[in-house]
């Protein structure tokens, strides 16, 4: 596509320079982390810090994945994956159903329930963390996937988003389905769900990353290193007292922790864009 605004000469160079600078500012720390994950511990400790990858890549990553410091990173990655997917799917299922109920059914206190759901937007995990911990501990869910996932599933944002989407679906579609003899749940499954595909894909990306990046909640309820998630696990790897930090392994873990969200974004982007192209409006 040729640009609508033509930039030539100095303006072109200047805008590129600014953009490259911005990209460099984001990428340089990641590059440093990558470099640090490929060298040996003494090389990091000795100034100046190396700027080019060393020869310890395979060694460091193997150590991180299968030995780790408190627990193998492969286990932590699995925990994070279960938690992120659990939260994303759980949130999507619950919000789809609650939005469906709020938009398509007339029941007593419908709007009251809607506003109650909406109010929870003001109660993020951090605000209700102590009582939530109390409840989860009381239910014996500490150090379990259920404990990691369930308290984070309720989602006002996703409910609101699906509600707004359902409101744009013409009423005639529901009526046509009724005349075709579809029950409410059948209409939901056969018509509403396929039509929400793009919304679901977009939300999955956002919610997966939300779940993956959870820090405070896993830190609180997983005391057993084998239940640690990778994002909080990195912090747990920092030495206490006079211990020497194994920076190459910690950096390898950081890089590994970054990969799944990147994979999800790239993988889902295709579906997301395809969905956008196929959408009605």
């Amino acid at each position, binding site marked *: 596509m040729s640009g609508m605004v033509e930039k030539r000469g100095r303006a072109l160079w200047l805008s590129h320079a600014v953009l490259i600078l911005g990209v460099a500012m984001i990428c340089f720390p990641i590059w440093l982390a990558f470099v640090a994950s490929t060298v040996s511990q003494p090389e990091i400790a000795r100034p100046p810090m190396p700027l080019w990858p060393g020869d310890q890549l395979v060694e460091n990553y193997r150590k991180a994945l299968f030995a780790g410091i408190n627990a193998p990173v492969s286990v932590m990655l699995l925990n994070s994956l279960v938690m992120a997917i659990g939260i994303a799917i759980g949130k999507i299922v619950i919000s789809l159903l609650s939005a469906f109920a709020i938009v398509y059914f007339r029941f007593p206190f419908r709007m009251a329930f809607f506003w109650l759901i909406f109010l929870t937007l003001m109660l993020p995990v951090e605000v209700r963390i102590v009582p939530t911990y109390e409840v989860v501990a009381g239910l014996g869910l500490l150090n379990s996937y259920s404990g990691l996932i369930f308290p984070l599933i309720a989602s006002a944002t996703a409910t609101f988003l699906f509600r707004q989407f359902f409101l744009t679906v013409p009423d005639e*579609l529901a009526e*046509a*389905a*009724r*005349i*075709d*003899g579809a029950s409410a749940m059948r209409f939901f499954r056969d018509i509403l769900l396929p039509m929400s595909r793009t919304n679901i894909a977009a939300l999955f990306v956002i919610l997966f990353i939300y779940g993956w990046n959870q820090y405070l909640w896993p830190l609180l309820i997983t005391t057993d290193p084998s239940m640690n998630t990778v994002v909080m696990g990195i912090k747990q790897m920092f030495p206490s007292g006079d211990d020497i930090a194994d920076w190459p392994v910690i950096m390898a873990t950081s890089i590994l922790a970054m990969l799944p969200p990147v994979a999800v974004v790239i993988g889902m982007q295709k579906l997301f864009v395809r969905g956008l192209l196929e959408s*009605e409006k």
Partner: protein
Amino acid sequence: MATVKLSDVRKSFGKNEVIHGIDLDIADGEFIVIVGPSGCGKSTLLRMVAGLETVSAGEIHIDGRRVNDLEPMERDIAMVFQNYALYPHMNVYDNMAYGLRIAGKSKEEIRERVHQAAALLQIEDYLERKPRQLSGGQRQRVAMGRAIVRKPAVFLFDEPLSNLDAKLRVQMRLEIKQLQKELGVTSLYVTHDQVEAMTLADRVIIMNEGKAEQIGTPLELYANPASRFVGGFIGSPPMNFINVREGRFGDLQVRPEADSLGVRPEHMRITNEGSGLLAGKVKFLEALGAETLVHVELENGNLITVRQPGSEPAPEAGSMADISWKAQDTAQFNSQGLRVDK
């Protein structure tokens, strides 16, 4: 095939009654058009027959069966919506087959019925396409196909042509008429377009403010409007209305209770000055080729439309003109707008 019977059907939203008792007997295979201005309750009435709105009072029978409390699908009806209401993520075949699948028909039967309907509507080439890949007219056909495959007792149409352009509308109108005659399915058709009503209907119901103003064949309504509203609604340009105190109507035998006279534009003639029933000044002309519409302004400012054949000489704009018509072409209405001379 079925009859439809409405007895004193009423609809209220809260305390607000919007349909004030409609009685109607529809014969098997009859094409009934409900026409009226927007907000007259015509769509609500249709949706009550469909089962999409509850019936507040009165009864609806389809084929002798009381359907007031039945779900839409149990009423043996099919409906065509104004915006087609096709399922956007399904292709044409699935759109048409969806109802049959839910009804638990066998795959072979579904395929046969869909292909049959598609052949009838000439949409066989589009069966694999999604609705968004179709033009408005094609979508309209698919919507009708979805209704036909169900082989319902009654077709319900809710302004099905209003989203099409003028040319396509005329074409689809003819097709709907043909199709209905061919299939012989009892049909109820809602529109605000009086031309659709006149051309499609065996009988027309004119609705106004939740009441049926008149029920009859299109020509009956045109020739003998039961009220001023009907005279003004049917016909384009509409009937002219003249206050009885406006002129000398000696030989018209105006009844004492009459308040206004209604005369169709084509029944009026421009005559020599001094010989007409009304006098006015020609404001402007609309020459449409086959006919010419002469708009005459009376002394009190009211506009009268005279429709004369295009071959006849038309008066100049700005000239004075007298208008006359025959006594038998006059409809007389009282102050409530009801016909008094029949």
